[in-house]
């Protein structure tokens, strides 16, 4: 009897009983592992499924305990879009997330580069301060910051108090970029210097092209941070519905529609969907970023 040659020895010709047990055991393990996998997959996906199904229910059915819509009310999504302010909240969210991300990257790259490649006194201290700032919740400094933006600059009711600080480096982005730049060998930087490149030119022409995955990860994280931010808009934008972002406005759907979960869930889907779409297009950069935050410096 001929067997496929490149199979591992224990999987070919189950002649001895010991080999047969080993094979059966491997099969049982495969079944156990994949059943667990399916169970876990259900736990992780069913919430999305139920939310989506409810978003398509009629008003009366949304008050029932049914799990599956009788009629598929795609018009619910139209109603969400027609909510006064909804398009403004979209625009505000894109402004905060888009402009904020550009500012964060532009201001954080040089700082991260200096921390990764320059030798100077106080470098460790600077990095420690960056990490400390990264670990601080915004609530710690919010009272003076609010008084500064609202009383001195009269900018409450806008998103500028959230966007402008991003032009001065974001601690988490600096840290993540620095971790990434550390993985670029110094030889490239030195070679550019030998070729007569100044520091800025070295950064722009040599380091940046190599740091593209790191920059992509930072941009994604910052975009999502702004998209997801609730506390910032709550402090600075709550008084002016024209300055709300989607994440902040979402709960108002529950207020406006009382117990109608269908429209609230349709709005919830619309807040989740862009994030998940972006993830699918940039999966690699994202997972890389998550692991970078954990690895050693």
């Amino acid at each position, binding site marked *: 009897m001929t067997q496929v040659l490149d199979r591992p020895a224990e999987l070919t010709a189950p002649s001895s009983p010991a080999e047969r047990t080993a094979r059966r055991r491997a099969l049982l393990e495969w079944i156990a592992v994949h059943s667990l996998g399916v169970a876990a997959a259900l736990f992780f996906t069913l919430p999305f499924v139920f939310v989506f199904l409810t978003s398509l229910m009629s008003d009366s059915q949304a008050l029932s305990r049914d799990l599956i819509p009788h009629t598929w009310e795609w018009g619910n999504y139209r109603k969400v879009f027609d909510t006064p302010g909804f398009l403004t909240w979209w625009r505000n969210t894109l402004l905060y997330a888009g402009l904020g991300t550009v500012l964060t990257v532009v201001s954080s790259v040089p700082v991260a580069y200096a921390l990764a490649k*320059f030798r100077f006194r106080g470098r460790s201290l600077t990095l420690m301060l960056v990490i400390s700032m990264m670990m601080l919740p915004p609530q710690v400094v919010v009272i003076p910051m609010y008084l500064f933006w609202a009383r001195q600059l009269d900018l409450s009711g806008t998103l500028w108090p959230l966007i402008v600080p991003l032009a001065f480096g974001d601690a988490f982005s600096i840290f993540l970029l620095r971790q990434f730049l550390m993985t670029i060998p110094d030889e490239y930087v030195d070679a550019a210097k030998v070729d007569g490149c100044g520091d800025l030119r070295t950064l722009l022409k040599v380091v940046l092209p190599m740091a593209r995955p790191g920059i992509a990860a930072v941009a994604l994280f910052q975009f999502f941070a702004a998209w997801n931010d609730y506390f910032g808009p709550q402090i600075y934008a709550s008084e002016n519905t024209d300055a709300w972002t989607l994440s902040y406005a979402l709960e108002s759907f529950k207020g406006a529609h009382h117990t109608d979960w269908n429209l609230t869930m349709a709005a919830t889907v619309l807040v989740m969907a862009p994030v998940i779409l972006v993830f699918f297009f940039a999966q690699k950069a994202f997972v890389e970023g998550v692991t970078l935050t954990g690895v050693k410096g």
Partner: protein
Amino acid sequence: MAAAHTLKAKHRRSALRTLAFLSPWLTGFAVFFAYPMISTVYFSFMHYDGFRPPAWSGTRNWTYVFAHYPFFWPALRNTLWLVVIMVTLRVLFGLGIGLLITKIKTGTGIFRTLFYLPYLAPPVAATMAFAFLLNPGTGPVNSILERAGVPAPGWFDDPDWSKPALTLMFLWGVGDLMVVFMAALLDVPKEQYEAAELDGASAWQRFRYVTLPAISPIIMFAVVTGVIAAMQCYTQPLVAGKVASGVIQGAGTMFEPGYPEHSTLTLPQLVYNLGFQRFDYGSACVVALVLFALSMAFTALLMRRRGGLIQAGD
């Protein structure tokens, strides 16, 4: 002489260069961190309601927060609950899912994506979703539980169940830990497993004596960052409480935080409650400093450990 001179000039130039590259962050540090930090300490000793000028009040804000403010100790107790129970469960579950994904051989990419996706759900959206899924009236979870004959809890409407409901939601979003543990598990040298197997070690013994020691720095990292995140937990408990209680904003700021019965209060919510609902900026700054001290204590732990944790030194 001339050589020393040019050396000095070179040093100065390189210092200026460093300063130039660091300047965005240095400005940000001064304006958005150092100044407000000093200011927070200052206000914590002031009586300030935002209308009349601040007036020195000594330690009155401090005694108020610790002795008379009714929300402080409940919030700290809730935080402790989250730190002990939620963080432990999340690390164990993250490790379990990480192990599972390294064992899955068929369709690994699809499983990994499905396991990871909930982590990406925006916090407010995830909370709205769980407020719906777990609502005792029409929620699918309780419908299914009742059909199965299991007594259905009140979740976000029951003070005993609101934190377990939050925990369930945080377990759902365990994708970050899964990725971190997965990377750590794949880094464990294969030879060690083979050697252990030759010595006749069982699956549990291999896990206990090969896997665990190898990934313990990552477990430590997950625990410490988990503790910091639990202390700073804000959006999810706040939104869950507001949606379950039915008190939703317009632009309004008046709602009783921590529904039901203060069971979802956390420290950051107190800063909001004191500062922006009660206009007691001084006492809000006291809570902010407590939050600062706790965060820094655990961040120091994170930076001091060598190995898999963040290393600030070179």
